[in-house]
């Protein structure tokens, strides 16, 4: 699944523009990940800060 490190995210929307599923949305300063995210990792690659990470297990 996709983890958003909220302490790193600069809420710029760069990731939203490349998401092939349309699964990301920037709501002002909050990045929302919708259920249709496939964890493809494209967003994690382009993030200027490294705020996104695809992880195997669900976070605690």
């Amino acid at each position, binding site marked *: 699944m996709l983890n958003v490190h909220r302490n790193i995210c*600069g*809420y*710029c*929307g*760069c*990731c*939203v*523009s*490349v*998401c*092939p599923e*349309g699964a990301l*949305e*920037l*709501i*002002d300063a909050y990045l929302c990940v919708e259920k249709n995210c496939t964890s493809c990792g*494209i967003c994690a*690659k*382009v*993030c*200027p*800060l*490294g705020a996104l990470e695809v992880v195997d297990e669900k976070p605690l």
Partner: protein
Amino acid sequence: MKSHYNLLIVGGGPAGAIAARTAAQKGLSSCIVEKRSAIGAPVRCAEGIGREALTEFVKPDERWISAEMKGAAIVAPDGTMMKLESAFAGNKVGYILDRKVFDRELVWQAAEAGSDVAVKTRAAAPIMEDGVVKGAKLEYCGKESRVTADVVIAADGVESKFARWCGIDTTVPVREIMSGAQYVLTDIDIDPHSTIFYLGNEVAPEGYLWIFPKGDRSANVGIGISGKKSGSGHRAKDYLDRFVQKTFSNGKPIEFIVGGVSVCRPLECTVADGLIITGDAARVVDPLTGGGIYNAMFTGRLAAQVAADCIAQGNTGKKALMAYDAGWRASKMGKSIERNYHIKEYLIKLSDEKLNAIIHSVTKLNLTEFSTLTLIKELMKVNPRLVVELGALAASLR
């Protein structure tokens, strides 16, 4: 806010503001909805714009002009500098804006002309009837409302969702998103009237690094790299920090921002029944420079003009609105996007050695017109190889 407008404009950036101002001047009712709580902030921009591009839309005002530019420089991967100056000595060629104030000024002008404005108000979904866009569902501080419109203008920027919700694929290819980061640095030694662009695979792979002066001793120092080249340990911020440490180790950051710029081809079609897509949302950024302020204002204005005509004729279907799509493609802006797309595709494939060679060919250029087109033409004059390699494209430039 009313429950119906001629134009509902999603997004309060330059595209939305100019669309609203134009609509209001034409006597249409319009409303801008902006999801952020403040117009213009946070800035996602290096704030550079050409003099003529700016004055086509608004009279320069010192309240939102940070600095006036008289020239530019390009730095090769090996550090060699090529200076670009206006053929008319001392001429102003461009400006570095203060977009926090500039964006507000544009929205203020729209409001002054008669448009409604709502902030912290998000378009959360389109209202669709039989595949036709009829308005938007809005959210404001937990309250939901429905606003209908004759035409909805999507001016929702790089993070655009509205057109996608209406069924249009707006995905930017990974290799064509510029992943960007920028500091506003102060207390640094710079030429306050010249922009500097650094090229090269070590500095900014498939992109560039810029210094855009904001005053005597401060500047936007930023970078854009291709999404393809970005990844853990080598992101835009990593490249930028390395440069800043080396070049401005005593500089003090007073702002740090990030952002994405699309350098792909524009959307295949920028209208649908009841919908016009403008600015970054339409992916009309100049693919060579990453500049999108002018293109946003240009498409915003044209969108409102075409919408006004279509509303007057009682037909806001896709076919009628196509006048907008055809209009910007045929314009100077549309043609320059197409041309610059090819030039960008050529340039990003060049090795550092080739870039060095091109920049070594001339140390100073005096440009009669301060544009990328004039620059490329001048470079072709001193680099016959470039003409051969650009092929058919070169022929079209002459």
